């Protein structure tokens, strides 16, 4: 660190000041002391992982209070949720995607001889009233439900981001108008919108996705808008505006990266809500249309024979619950880790 020659300055200074500086001056005279020590020599700011434990502390015996505090920190870290979530989702994905390559039985193969057979070695989850293997159908059904959920969430997040970023950043009338529309749309209960769309458009595979997408756009718009409002006036956004950055650059380079962690956790939690909504719609017969299997539809069929073959309902039901718990855990874990 080259020390540029100090400019000479007059040696006047008050009594306290002179006394103070002569005391702090090392060997050379007052003016020669380098005023601005290069901070490189200072003990640099040790990041979290590297600090050393202070010697003055009593030997490491964990008192009750300390272990309680460690436990609280463990909860706050969210690692537990992330772990559970990943395990569950990995299992479900493995089964569902695996079903493309192999399912123990063809999903429409009807083994009339063993109708409504309880779960056994041959039929892991038993068979339904038409003798079809519940496990194969549940696993294949999972694939379609997940597909619909992922597509829904992706599309609604995209629209939500654009609307949220724009209305949050623009503010004023634009913001007021967009938010009034969003409020109106969200005043329709989710299922209601899906019902309207389904009645109006014919029941193709994509109608359910469009319906669910409209259902989820308001919530994602609100999340992105709140994030934008929070960061729009942040000092670092104002300082890069002073650098001459255009509004677009501010939004994409500064505002969005800071909203992303929160958005990611809401997207994942959104996935579980999408699965909930889709299976609800399929239950009503308005979602994925037979013959393609879906968890909701299987539950509808299982309802009539619940007494004789309860496993027909429990299998898809538990699959839904595990998937949703998995996604919610991951979402919660991310939220805790980043916020």
């Amino acid at each position, binding site marked *: 660190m080259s020390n540029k020659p100090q400019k000479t300055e007059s040696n006047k200074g008050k009594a306290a000041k002179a006394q103070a500086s002569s005391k702090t001056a090392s060997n050379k005279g007052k003016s020669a002391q380098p005023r601005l020590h290069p901070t490189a020599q200072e003990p640099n700011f040790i990041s979290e992982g590297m600090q050393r434990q202070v010697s003055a502390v009593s030997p490491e015996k964990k008192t009750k209070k300390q272990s*309680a*505090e460690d*436990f*609280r920190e463990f*909860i706050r870290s969210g690692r537990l949720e992330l772990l559970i979530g990943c395990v569950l989702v990995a299992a479900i994905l493995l089964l569902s995607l695996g079903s493309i390559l192999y399912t123990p039985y063809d999903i429409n193969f009807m083994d009339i001889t063993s109708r409504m057979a309880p779960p056994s070695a041959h039929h892991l989850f038993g068979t339904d009233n038409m003798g079809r293997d519940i496990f194969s159908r549940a696993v294949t059904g999972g694939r379609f439900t997940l597909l619909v959920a992922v597509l829904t969430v992706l599309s609604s997040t995209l629209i939500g981001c654009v609307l949220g970023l724009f209305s949050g950043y623009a503010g004023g009338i634009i913001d007021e108008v967009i938010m*009034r*529309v969003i*409020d*109106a*749309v*969200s*005043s*329709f*209960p*989710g*299922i*209601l919108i899906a*019902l*309207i*769309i*389904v*009645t*109006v*458009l*014919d029941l193709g595979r994509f109608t359910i996705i469009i319906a669910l997408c409209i259902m989820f756009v308001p919530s994602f718009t609100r999340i992105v808008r709140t994030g934008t409002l929070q960061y729009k006036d942040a000092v670092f956004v104002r300082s890069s505006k002073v650098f001459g950055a255009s509004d677009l650059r501010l939004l994409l380079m500064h505002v969005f990266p800071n909203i992303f962690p929160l958005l990611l956790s809401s997207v994942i939690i959104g996935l*579980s809500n999408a699965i*909930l909504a889709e*299976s*609800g719609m399929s*239950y*009503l*017969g*308005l979602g994925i249309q037979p013959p393609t299997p879906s968890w*909701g539809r299987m*539950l509808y069929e*299982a*309802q009539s024979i*619940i*007494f004789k073959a*309860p496993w027909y*309902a429990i299998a898809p*039901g538990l699959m*839904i*619950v595990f998937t*949703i*718990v998995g996604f*919610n*855990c991951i979402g*919660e874990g991310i939220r805790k880790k980043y916020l």
Partner: protein
Amino acid sequence: MKYISRKILILIITILFITLLTFLAFHVLPGDPAQLILGTEASPEKVEALREQLGTNQPLLRQYTSWISGFARGDFGTSLKYQKPVAELIAGRLPVTLLLGTMVIVLTLAVGIPLGVFAARKQGTWIEQGVSLLTMLGVSVPGFFLSILFMWIFGLVLHFFAPGRFISWESDPAGCLRFMIWPALAIAVPQTATLVKYIRTSMIDELRSDYVRTARGNGTPENTVMYRHALRNAIVSVVPLIGMMIGEIFSGSIIVEQVFAIPGIGRLLVSSVTSRDFPLTQTLVVYCALIIVITNFLVDIVIQLIDPRIRLTE
């Protein structure tokens, strides 16, 4: 006062907007509703007759104005499927859904708030972790799966109630309640779980705030800190979310009424959709949206009453 009148103005605009949105959804987007209902093979005359009855052959604006004025007068047109005035159909089923809705709300608030406060109080211990695990599960169970489980376990196995046989309030109030408690629970479980999560988080935030520290500095006992200071502020920040949950409860009831075969608005809506009964569906959609919008409006007023920061001084 100005604040409330402004809010009413926005409410009316939102209602008009909803009716417009619904009208557009039903009349403009698809091809020809009559064609859709009768299917492709129907003879042109029949389609024309139906179009006449539906009034879809008149210019759009007139259709809309006649529909709105009818709506205001309470004449919602006649249902195609039941050949009965829509108003009559709704009048019969609205009380059932409202009863179910109120039961759900009472259950959710009665269980949710104390549990949320309890979890916040036991912060950082196993109990809190247990509660959050429970709420995680509660949020993840779909309403209709829960209903089917309830029907199977409490209905068929334990015979607490007879699944599928709805007992109306007039005939036997006690029996009706005994029957309705199960669908109400099926809707309430996910909602309670969400409420517990909201209350717990906002309670923990309030307990970490400066004014709670001031209260403790004044020597306020922990209970008073918890209920007189932290809880009141937590409720104020949670009330808007409760408003949003009303919408969720309503959509939950649409499916659960289907499972328990409860003759409510939800079930009527589903059957009208599947049978493409246009006038009935259209009115029901607007009706449901109105209920949600009005409840949100009431929630806004409640917020304005209990939170002085929002109440505008003269």
